[in-house]
């Protein structure tokens, strides 16, 4: 059951994230990317199989271990995502300071740009 539940959760996160990204407000767009990221992490983790062994630590004596590869991938993704979110945030902050709006429709450049 856990896999089905996770798959549905992944779908929900993707739906909400996409909906937020398609809105006009920069802040909502950033919130959307964060939610999609959670969706991606859960997707990778679910793909590797859930709860089919102990944590991937050889110090503990388990008969089987959960797949360590998806975990390494997700760990990398979490940290990169932090940097990307920071950049998005500052970009929108800077854009607001310069242009005075967070509405991407109003941010469109002039013809010669």
């Amino acid at each position, binding site marked *: *059951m*856990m*896999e*089905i539940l*996770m*798959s549905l*959760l*992944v*779908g*929900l*996160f*993707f*739906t*909400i994230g*996409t*909906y937020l990204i*398609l809105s*006009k*407000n*920069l802040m909502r767009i950033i919130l959307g990317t964060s*939610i999609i990221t959670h969706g991606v*992490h*859960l*997707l990778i*983790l*679910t*793909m*590797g*199989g*859930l*709860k*089919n062994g102990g944590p*991937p*630590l*050889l*110090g503990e004596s388990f008969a089987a*271990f*959960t797949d*360590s590869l998806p*975990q*390494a991938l*997700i*760990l*990398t993704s*979490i*940290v*990169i995502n*932090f*940097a990307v*979110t*920071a*950049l998005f945030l*500052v*970009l*929108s*902050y800077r854009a607001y*300071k310069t242009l005075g709006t*967070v509405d991407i*429709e109003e941010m*469109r450049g002039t013809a010669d740009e």
Partner: protein
Amino acid sequence: MSSLHLMIFIPFIFAIIVPFIHRQCIQRVHTGWFVLAVPLSILLYLIPYIRAVSIGKTIQLELQWMPSLGINFTAYLDGLALIFALLISGIGALVILYSIYYLSKEKEALNNFYVYLLLFMGAMLGLIFSDNIFVLYVFWELTSISSFLLIAYWYQRKHSRYGAQKAMLITIAGGLAMLAGLILLSIITETNSIREMVSMVGESEKHKLFLPAMIFLLLGAFTKSAQFPFSIWLPDAMEAPTPISAYLHSATMVKAGIYLVARFTPVFGGSAEWFWLVSGAGIITLLYGSINAVQQKDLKALLAYSTVSQLGLIMSLLGIGSAALYLKTGNESSVYAFAVAAALFHLINHSTFKGSLFMVVGIIDHEAGTRDLRRLGGLAALMPVSFTLAVIGSFSMAGLPPFNGFLSKEMFFTSILTLIEQPVFGIRALAMLFAIVAWTASVFTFIYCMILVFKTFTGKHHPEKLDKQVHEAPLGMLVSPMVLASLVVMIFFFPNVIADYFLKPALAAVVPGQAGLDIHISPWHGWNAEVIMTLGVIGCGILLYRGLKKWLPVYQRYPKGLTFNHLYQLTLEGMEGLSFKVTKRYMTGIVRDYLVYIFFTIILVIGGALWLLDGISFYFSNNAPVNAYEMGIVVGMIVAALTVLLAKSRLTAIIALGALGLLVSLLFVVFRAPDLALTQLVVETVTTVLFLLCFYHLPELRREKSKLRFKLTNLLISLGVGAVFTVLALSANNHRFSETISSFFEDSYTLAGAKNMVNAILVDFRGLDTMLEILVLAIAGLGVFTLIHLGDSGQAVKSNLLEKIKSNDVILRTVTKAASIIIFTFAIYLFFGGHHNPGGGFVGGLSSAAGLILLYLTFDSETIRENIQVDFKKLAAAGVLIAVMTGAGSFLFQAPFLSQTFGHVELPVFGDTELATALIFDLGVALAVVGTAMTIILTISEDES
């Protein structure tokens, strides 16, 4: 690496150094003097090889590059490569010497000039020494690129840019065709080495891809060597400075196509198609170039067309000579092999006389300020030395004795006559036509050579048409053309030195079956057909030259719309217009449109692939159970996510997002991923602070006032994306295409000395990924810093937002002190424990950052800055550097980049301690993470407002 490889790399290494030298000596010494050392040293290095190669030795040296792909940088030196190497280094040295006087050190951007020139020299040497076809291709394209840069050297001029673009488009298009040909060849022969290809000639000829491979390869050779109709780029390439025209566009680069044809003659030669294509293209180009050269008014344009024509001559000789491989042995074969010798001989001769002619034209341009034949005349008295040099060069090109051009032109006639006497491949009917075309082209060649000399140097001098007072060039400028001109004369008198030392070993490389062939060149064989042809050329040439005024207007009759230049222009404009129209259709400038494209593509590609490949399949047999606790987490996550979606205030959204992140980390615990749970927990904390800091400045979330249709479209797309990913997740579950590789990592203790598999993957197995990741991280940090400080006056920080919101609560301050110590201790524990237990560089670094943020929140920044004197940007850089250095450290132990090792050390207090180099690497990771995180947070918080 061998010394031969070093010769290829020296120009590249020097290209890096030149700008620094240039900056040092910009006012005092001409940069060219330093650059001159490069070709001279290569030349000196090559000289000892001449003897060895002449007695039939070849040198093959291997340098492993990508052995798994069969791509090794094998340098191969034989007679053919030696001729080219000597031309590249020898003429290179003369051209650089000439350029020292031609380009003023005050006015010109010499650093660019010499960097491009050295780039070209290295690329060209690499091209001729490569035995591997793909390495050859890389160098081939590099010569095109450096040629592009050199043609556009005076990029302020519109014509220079046009010429550079044209040369680039045509030669690169040909280069791509050549790549296709090389790939086909490697499929046919199952090797990437030219040497091995040569050794399996018989088999490859029967392959059905043999002909396509040949045609694609020849497209590359023909575009590079300006064969008709691709020759249109060469006249426009004359916008380059004259030393470059002399070097690239007459002596070396344009001969790369000739080299390619010669190099692959043992592979393709002997087939009728090769014979017809190469000799046909060559003979047409010969005629086309010579006819066009006559009508030129610009001296350089005249030389450009003459180069086209002469390249055609060499090409046609190679084509004719390839028949020697068909005939294999015997006298008939040797007669055809003689044509190859003639081609190589003319190649050398052409480089000498054309090089000197270009330099003389450069001198005229330099001294008279123009190259226009209508403004020049009567310069012989004013520039006697240049006049003499021009006479030697032109008469040699026209095929007159006592100059080397006479000898190779006689050999050309001999080879053409061979076609009539001993026809092959059914050429009997056309042999006569070949002879007539060759003879006519020679007449035109004679005419333009006379135009070059006599229209410029004799007749009436018109000082009023010139902007400058004309006088002879300085000696330094004359030295290079003098050297070449004396070679022109010397080769005429001692042609067999060239034949013995260069032509014979080169012939062995092109026609291996005729390796021992004796080539004897002599200026006089009695009254044979060749001499009569030459006399006819001279007679007719003089007559036509005298009547030039009467028949030259015929050229004006030719419709301008029917030229290949016009076709090129039309194609280019048409393509630009079309792509602009198409692009304008979908590039609306609205970000949302692009996002919609992206999401639609995701739905189409993933959904479509699942549908078409029957990927949708559900198995639920191995599913893990769900308990109430986990159900609670999931419900909480759904609520949090929906709250973010519907939130009307910034704060609600941020808090809901934070809650979602914490619930995700709980889920990681459930799924036995302690490392993920830890990292997610800390990242969520820091990210929440980040969101708070930024959203504080941004306006409150408003209800979106948009049309229902807009919202409905968005909803539909979102549901589509969500559905696709749900199906993907369900189908991927328990569905494997191949065996899992994860059991490999379960040996992490024996392989990497780590009990924590995830950490072992990050710092050891996939260390390169992690290294690049922290690099990205550091770049993001710098990006944030730059974005905030963009357009700053560089003043000191005015206020700190963290300080503004700091609390004066005494209890909080006291607790904070203790808490931060706990956090730091925990961070250090996480860092060191990471190799065996959950933790590691990432989470250690992030926790330290969290502790620091807490300190900034409670104490004023003054106090903190006094106690923690760290520039976090530099800390991030230091972290990346440590990681890279750890990786590079492996080289000291002859191990590949980023090889980690581990061992046990007996320490006094700790006893038996296990140390791994991975720990140093992880330290780099931790420092990069702290540095970046703090740079980001502090930069945002310190910004005024």
